[in-house]
């Protein structure tokens, strides 16, 4: 854990809540971007990040400092996101009378008036995001953490509580699966 994070955590445990505010500012966007790519839903991602910070605040004294503070936060957020997805799947099954979630979320329609390149770029991103959504959760998370967040294998393994070898093989399988899905997307279009 970085000395600066350590200092803020200590201050927070001594009752200075604003120190926790500084930790939030420091990590909110990285956490949000990852969760957003996992869930593909801005509102859910925001709720998960908020919930994760609240949980982290309450269990701050259990943070031992043997990993990076961000890794610890990440683990909390990942578990919160998984639990939210599980709840949503149950809700959807109840509403649809047992039908399975197709995994494809409504796409972001806020890209309305973008000219040329930007619009093409946005289309491309939507295509990739749709393919990401169709990956199994364990494949999606390793791709997001490795390629989008640029995390090291050790960190991914720590967050997911799996051996590094598992991260490696999941990542390789995820790349091939993503390729297949993008090919299907391409053939559809």
């Amino acid at each position: 854990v970085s000395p600066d994070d350590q200092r803020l955590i200590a201050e927070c445990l001594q009752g200075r809540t604003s120190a926790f505010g500084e930790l939030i500012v420091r990590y909110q966007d990285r956490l949000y971007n990852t969760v957003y790519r996992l869930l593909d839903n801005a509102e859910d991602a925001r709720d998960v990040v908020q919930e994760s910070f609240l949980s982290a605040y309450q269990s701050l004294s259990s943070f031992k400092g043997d990993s990076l503070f961000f890794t610890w936060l990440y683990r909390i957020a990942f578990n919160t996101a998984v639990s939210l997805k599980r709840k949503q799947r149950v809700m959807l099954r109840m509403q649809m009378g047992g039908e399975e979630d197709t995994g494809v979320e409504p796409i972001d329609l806020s890209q309305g008036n973008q000219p040329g390149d930007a619009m093409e770029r946005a289309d491309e991103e939507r295509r990739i995001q749709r393919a990401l959504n169709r990956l199994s959760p364990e494949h999606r998370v390793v791709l997001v953490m490795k390629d989008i967040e640029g995390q090291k294998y050790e960190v991914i393994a720590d967050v997911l509580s799996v051996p590094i070898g598992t991260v490696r093989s999941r990542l390789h399988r995820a790349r091939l699966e993503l390729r297949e899905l993008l090919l299907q997307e391409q053939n559809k279009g």
Partner: protein
Amino acid sequence: MLTEETRQLLAAYVDGEVSPRQRAQVDSLLSKSAEARNLLEQLQRDSGELRAMKRKTLPQDFSLQVLKNIADKKLQPESTPPPTTTFPAWLGITIAVAVLVLVTVVSFLFFAMR
């Protein structure tokens, strides 16, 4: 047609996660197979596209909203429970034996004096 093993090897190559022997194997494969070259190029492009995805951010005041939530819910960092003092097994056995001996002696004395 590439085997599953070869496809996995190419995926590992994208991450630079190959041994020198595997690297030589891939290099040789790439020089011979257009299908392998094509797959590797696509896998590298996919990885690049993931990296290039626009980063999503939260509003500036997000931290204030979380802090307000903490205040509204009156949340506090939970204090870590003090480490529980473990009672060594040998001490338990010693005490049990001592109690047993004491009861035996007292009983013996009680009946012997009657």
